[in-house]
């Protein structure tokens, strides 16, 4: 099914169709992640691929138009490049470790420590979280910075306009009212989504979830609000200055944790020294940095969405 979708994406010219199929594609790959035991990844892929990316792409389509024009170049050269690359990969796979064999080098070398020792060493049951936030905490800091960089980039390209006066092309009449049913539903759902975001944020140590997923869920609540009540109301709810301050604050919380551990005489991002005994220290450290991640991700996503919609509204 996945390949079918992918190939259809290649063939389809209606860009709306392409984007929607991309949403399906993403959901499908998230399903595959579930089957392959990667619950956290499935969570994120669904949030990012089927959720945020698709919404961003749609917002782009609003201002760019929906049909693709046929290319006038011959598809043979790219096809050749692709076939060669694919053939190289297939050739290479013949030597690769077999799928799912517990004796593969991947499972016996580094990962064994994560699986066997981390629940006692770091003290939390979700191994993904402990690797993410502690063993490879610096990578995650890099990830937060990447997201932050994206905000910097998007803001330098597009401006968020708080109060757009929308020229009305629509004919007035009973049909042109916004969807009242939707607004009621949104008001019901948004508090629930926010609570759910908090649950995912703080439950990440024990179950799937964590700062990133919670941030996206939080942002999706605001996006839903903006979709049903209009951009102006949403910007009034979450003003632009707040987005800027919080996005930077999240990064600083993460980085600051590292500086604190440095000041306490340990290496950067070593949480052992944050409390009296290492396991507690790890726990505090992970909670704090997950909070930083959550704040930055939520505000960045909201900021990018606002910027996109401002542009889309302004383009008419």
């Amino acid at each position, binding site marked *: 099914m996945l390949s079918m979708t992918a190939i259809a994406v290649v063939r389809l010219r209606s860009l709306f169709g392409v984007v929607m199929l991309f949403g399906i594609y993403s959901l499908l790959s998230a399903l595959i992640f579930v089957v392959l035991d990667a619950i956290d990844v499935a969570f994120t892929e669904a949030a990012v691929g089927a959720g945020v990316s698709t919404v961003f792409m749609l917002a782009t389509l609003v201002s760019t138009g929906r049909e693709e024009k046929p290319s006038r170049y011959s598809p043979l050269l790219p096809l050749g490049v692709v076939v060669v690359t694919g053939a*190289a*990969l297939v*050739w*290479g*796979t*013949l*030597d*690769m*470790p077999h799928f799912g064999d517990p004796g*593969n*080098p*991947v*499972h*016996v*070398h*580094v*990962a064994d*420590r*994560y699986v066997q020792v981390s629940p006692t060493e770091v003290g939390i049951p979700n191994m993904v979280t402990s690797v993410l936030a*502690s*063993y*490879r*905490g*610096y*990578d995650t*800091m*890099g*990830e937060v*910075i*990447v997201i*932050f*960089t*994206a905000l*910097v*980039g998007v*803001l*330098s*390209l597009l*401006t968020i306009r708080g109060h757009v006066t929308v020229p009305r092309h629509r004919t007035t009449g009973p049909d042109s009212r916004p969807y009242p049913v939707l607004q009621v539903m949104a008001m019901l759902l948004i508090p629930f989504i926010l609570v759910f975001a908090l649950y995912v944020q703080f439950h990440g140590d024990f179950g799937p979830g964590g700062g990133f997923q919670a941030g996206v869920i939080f942002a999706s609540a605001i996006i839903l609000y903006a979709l049903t009540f209009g951009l102006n109301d949403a910007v009034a709810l979450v003003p632009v200055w707040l987005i*800027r*301050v919080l*996005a*930077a*604050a999240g*990064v*600083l919380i993460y*980085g*600051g944790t*590292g*500086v604190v551990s*440095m000041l306490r*005489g*340990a*290496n*950067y*991002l*070593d*949480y*052992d020294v944050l409390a009296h005994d290492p396991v507690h220290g790890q726990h505090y450290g992970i909670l704090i940095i997950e909070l930083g991640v959550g704040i930055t991700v939520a505000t960045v996503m909201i900021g990018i969405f606002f910027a996109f919609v401002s542009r889309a509204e302004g383009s008419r």
Partner: protein
Amino acid sequence: MIQDHLAALQVVLPLLAAPLCFLLARQRLLAWLLTTLVSWGCLAISLALWWQVRDGDVIHYAFGGWDAPWGIEYVVDRLNVLVLVIVSGIAAITFPAARCSVEKEVPEDRQGLLYTALLLCLAGLLGITITGDAFNLFVLLEISSLSSYTLISLGRDRRALTASFQYLVMGTIGATFILIGVGILYMLTGTLNMADLAVRLPALGESRAMQTAFGFLIIGVGLKLAMFPLHLWLPNAYAYAPSIVSAFMAATATKVAVYVMVRYLFTIFGPAFSFTEMHVQLLFIPVGLIAVVFTSIVALFQHDIKRMLAYSSVAQIGYMLVGIGLVNVSGLTAALLHVFNHALMKGALFLALGATCYRIGAPLIDNLRGLGKQMPWTMAAFVGGGLSLIGVPLTAGFISKWYLILAAVERGWWPVVVIVVISSLIAVIYIWRVVEAAYLQERPDDAATVTEAPLALLVPTWILVLANFWFGVNPGALTALAGDAASVLFGGYTW
């Protein structure tokens, strides 16, 4: 206490300064001041690191207190400290000059964001250089790439947008190729730490999967360093970016990619695998030579001097590839020296050009006519940088070309020598076009009279030009460092 944390601070300092700068974005002066101070701080740190590793020590810094291979570590040795110094040095010289030129070229409300992106780009480049973890490298690579897409798109011309987009697509393909390569290596060994990889890969023996990974990594890094047929993004990106961004990126970004290439070839895969089994030199020598000749000729026909210099950058990367492909110590020494020296000369040339743009706008060759009299210092700086680019004796450019020729002679590959000399002659021609326009032609009557560029731009330019001459006259310390690093790399050395 602080000296133990220098390796981490080298990257964390600009990384954390970026959000601060983002908060200060509305106060342009403060944002610029912060950026400048941080770049000086980075230079100080990298010099201190040089001091610490000067005798061949290797510094390991484990993040989070988790030892490699479980955690992420930073490693500093004599090879990457060279790149650290040049990157932070160029930053420390170009960032102070930024204010002047940025005020003129970028809208006011975007300037704070530009400084933030500059800091992020610096942090990313330093991080790529210093990290000892293959996946961490990917993350930092993306930080620097995303910020450079932003920086390029801030150019005045609308073509900056398309250039940036083209770079984004090609850069992301490159990064994904690197990701595939790292994934296969991980699959085969179970580790992401470079030192650990270097130990475990040879134990695998002949493996097709490893060869595939090698291919993907070479192509991925090749895209980033604008290896010849994959260079298409570079000329437009450098030509339409704001001047100061061109100066910083032309001097640093591709150099860091060259370093990554060297690191993969020599430290991770080992010279035995790279050159004896995969024969990567059979790729590098022809590609490098074609790049040198072909792009030099293309550079001849450019009206826009920024584009001309950008094409010349691709040619210079060709020299570095040839140096690596010669597979001997002096060839590698030449390549490393050229990494350093080319950063100096391209930095100087692009800054001089930035100063010119400050007064005359677009740097088209026709606009330069008669400028030699009106902007004598700027034009003299340009000529100084140009001499170094050509490789005239007593300049830094001469030293690296000299070593390259020596290495080729050592191998007995005379055609390589001939091509290097020919392409230097082509460089003479394209630099001469500028000199001719600036000094020998009269200023057109309808052109506005311009005055010398402001000191804030001239001083950094001249620092770089003088550095070119200084390293041309006293190459001793540098060649010793590069030579040591090269012979250590060939000695089957692992971290």
